């Protein structure tokens, strides 16, 4: 039991890391990763939703009729997204403003619905929780690494938390602004995927 728990948890971190291997959840990945901080915030919000929706879906898996399961999953997910929205509005207001419309849009993030449909609807509560947590942390890792790369190249800084840069490249560095602009998001993610392919399959 413990072994399979670890297996389900770790697969989300590398072998099936949502953004790079499965290429799901692209929209938030492209839109909010201007800074590393935004990536971490978005990743944590998604992790929360993933974990709890997986747990609830898995608990209700024998009660929900198969025909209307997608609608039920979406309502469960939307409930947790609403909770996250209010928690962020109360405690991390600046981040809430920066992420804007992308917090309610976690509802239509295919990673969340995909895990509910592919995993939580068929497995026990403990396994689903491990899967949700692993996938969420993997998604956070992917978002924050993309954010870090874009911020470092595009602005010459690295912000982890709280809005003030943790680290700034020396004065001689001229930021390559393309990377923090819209088109840079696509190119940056494309290059990261290429890097993942180079490192090797699984």
């Amino acid at each position: 039991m413990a072994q399979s728990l670890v297996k389900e948890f770790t697969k989300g971190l590398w072998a099936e890391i949502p953004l790079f291997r499965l290429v799901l959840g692209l929209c938030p990945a492209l839109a909010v990763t201007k800074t590393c901080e935004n990536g971490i915030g978005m990743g944590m919000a998604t992790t929360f939703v993933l974990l709890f929706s997986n747990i609830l879906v898995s608990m209700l898996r024998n009660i929900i009729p198969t025909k209307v399961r997608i609608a039920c999953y979406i309502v469960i997910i939307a409930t947790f997204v609403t909770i996250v929205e209010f928690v962020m509005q109360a405690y991390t207001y600046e981040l809430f403003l920066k992420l804007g419309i992308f917090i309610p849009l976690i509802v239509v993030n295919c990673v969340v619905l995909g895990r509910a449909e592919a995993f939580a609807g068929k497995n026990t509560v403990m396994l689903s929780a491990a899967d949700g947590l692993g996938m969420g942390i993997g998604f956070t890792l992917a978002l924050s690494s993309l954010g870090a790369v874009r911020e470092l190249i595009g602005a010459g800084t690295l912000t982890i938390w709280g809005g003030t840069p943790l680290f700034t490249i020396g004065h001689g560095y001229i930021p390559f602004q393309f990377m923090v602009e819209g088109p840079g998001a696509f190119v940056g993610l494309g290059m990261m995927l290429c890097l993942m392919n180079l490192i090797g399959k699984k």
Partner: protein
Amino acid sequence: MGDLFVLAISCIFINNIVLAQYLGNCPFLGTSKKMETAVGMAMAVIFVLVMAGMITWIVDLYLLKALDVEFLRTVSFILVIASLVQFVEMFLKKSIPGLYAGLGIFLPLITTNCAVMGVCLINIKEEYTFIQALVSSFAYAVGFGLALILFAGVRERVVLARVPKALQDTSIGLITAGMIALVFTVFRGMV
């Protein structure tokens, strides 16, 4: 009338839903490998988005705001969209089988297209009137279709090129999309 025209132009080009607002990227990459599927998806999105934009606007004003339960917006919008897609599917299957066969598998996929939900939320956030919401929904959908069809055209050519192994498929697709997005930034100074 002039204002509405400016709104439409800015929604299609300047704030293009895929390339400038990053919404609806999953279907953008997923259905752009062939021109045929791209056109099908574009049509389905235009159809659903216009209807969803109108219905969610009405729901927001006469249900959520009237009853003071705006915190239910996320839940109610996604339910409206999901049931609308289901309803449109059944309606088309019965009364316009030709169109149904054309749109086919793209209809159910639209439920998880964040462009639809995103535009509905933008309409509310920008406090558009009903007519403005209608125009913006249609224009955003046209912008989505335009970007998708352009991208599919480029991608069909990329298949013929010799791409390094590590860059193949999605990776080169994203970089291509980045180049198209770069072209679209030129529109920024227009309005």
